[in-house]
């Protein structure tokens, strides 16, 4: 229940394993119509790590996240969270989750949305309020506690979703393309905020994205996946120094790692993901090319 563990957030984190995947596989459908979404995934994520799952559409990265969260059952192999079977960890409310959409209840205020998981746990009212207030301070939305979701911007709504996921003080935070629907500027700002939250809470994070720069910027490790069937083809350690900030994106090492992830994706046969995953529109790419020639 508590996410208390000491970590520097470095890729060499040697804490206890929080997520253990052993030959985990997922097959949808049966017989002739069966589709293998994931095949024999082996991955151990230790306390305090920030691991990103990156890959082309249809590589099963969101499915893998749902296996860890026991939102869908594994077909083969084993998934353990906090040393327990994933189903037991879910029932024990040991992780928080953030989806691509904020999934806020429009009839609840921001504060009451953050309180929702605490209500389900059966916490008394005053304790719920205290925890929700602390979480809103963490995501810097205290001034909006009494507002309704539709009165907030998309980025703010996603911060409320993060506050809600962290309200139960989980050892593990699962994030499924949480910033995928946001514009590039908002996404970069939220990446910075997420780094700060990760440093302050020490929560282990598993993060799904199809953006290479985002993966490199955030992660201590990047698990590169390929499709049909979904597999982890490479795990790349991101040895960029902590804490990370805007200057991280200007370091030579950062560009080397972006290239390394891109190469790994390409070797995995993910040609189609390369172009659009850099966050560059055609117009922007054209401008950069023109400047290069000037």
């Amino acid at each position, binding site marked *: 229940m508590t996410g208390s563990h000491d970590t520097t957030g470095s890729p060499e984190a040697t804490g206890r394993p929080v997520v253990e995947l052993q030959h985990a596989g997922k097959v949808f459908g049966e017989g002739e119509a069966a589709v293998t979404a994931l095949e024999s995934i082996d991955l151990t994520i230790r306390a305090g790590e920030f691991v990103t799952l990156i890959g082309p559409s249809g590589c099963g990265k969101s499915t893998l996240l749902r296996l860890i*969260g026991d*939102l869908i059952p594994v077909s083969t192999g084993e998934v353990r969270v906090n040393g327990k079977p994933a189903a037991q960890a*879910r*029932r*024990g*409310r040991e*992780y*928080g*989750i953030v*989806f691509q*959409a904020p*999934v806020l*209840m*429009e*009839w*609840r205020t921001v504060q009451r949305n953050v309180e*929702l*998981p605490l*209500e*389900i*746990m059966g916490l008394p009212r005053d304790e719920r309020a205290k925890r929700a207030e602390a979480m809103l301070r963490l995501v810097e939305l205290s001034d909006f506690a009494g507002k*309704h979701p*539709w*009165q907030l911007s998309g980025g703010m709504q996603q911060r409320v979703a993060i506050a809600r996921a962290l309200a*139960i003080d989980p050892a593990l935070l*699962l994030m499924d393309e949480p910033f995928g629907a946001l514009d590039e500027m908002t996404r970069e700002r939220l990446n910075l905020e997420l780094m700060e939250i990760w440093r302050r809470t020490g929560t282990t994070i598993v993060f799904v994205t199809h953006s290479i720069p985002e993966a490199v910027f955030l992660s201590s490790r990047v698990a590169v996946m390929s499709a049909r069937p979904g597999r982890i083809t490479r795990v790349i350690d991101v040895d960029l120094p902590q804490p990370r900030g805007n200057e991280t994106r200007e370091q030579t090492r950062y560009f080397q790692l972006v290239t390394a992830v891109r190469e790994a994706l390409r070797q995995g046969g993910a040609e189609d993901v390369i172009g659009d995953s850099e966050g560059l529109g055609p117009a922007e790419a054209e401008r950069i090319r023109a400047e290069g020639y000037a």
Partner: protein
Amino acid sequence: MTRARDVARLRGAGLPLLVFVGVLVLWEFSLAALGVQQFLLPRPSVIAGSLAEQGGLLAQAALYTATEVVGGLAIGCTLGIAAALAAARWRAARNALVPIGIAMSSIPIIAMAPITNIWFTSDAAASRMAIVAVLVFFPMLVNTIRGLTEVDPAALELMNACAASEAQILRKVRIPNALPFVFTGLKVATTLGVIGAVVGEYFGGPLAALGVYIQSEAYNFRYNHAWAAIVIACAMGIAFYVAVLVLERVLLPWHASSREVAG
């Protein structure tokens, strides 16, 4: 800001009011010019006169009919919502209840009225309440089922991730999600309810009931009196609708339809 919105709202209300008054004026003065007989369509001023003259009896009749509408709505809506809760929870209940709802909705009211008069006697308000209840059951059932089941799948996934029980999902997601749909059903139900009660009264009831009054006055060639009662029935339908609208704004200030007012 507030003043600008008030002006905008006044303007929004002003135009329909202007059209309404214009139609009344046109109605008042064009009938004589066109040579339309008084009994075919009385002038608004004549109808207004009858309203004043028959005020006491009309008020009594309106109260009686309104009681039937409210009683029928209470029974029909309660049953409709209860059936929807069962249908949303158990697939078997859904398969059993929805065809019954469809069958009930296709019963012509004319066919029902003589039957309910035999069941409850034609003088009993219960006879019309039964008709109203049958009429409103289906729109309430269908709308509430939609509200309870058309839930964002991600919201259910979130509740699952929190290890919420079925009862918690119902209370914290499905029911709040269904409330706007329930109000949509209620708006349809109020309109249907007034029609059901008045038409049901054509087949019997005490004299101080809008439907009975309209029929007997028309039968006795007092068309201006019948028209006055029709105006009252119309006003009652609007009043019920507005009451539901106000209730919705008060209870669901978060909903999109209330935002202009709430924000």
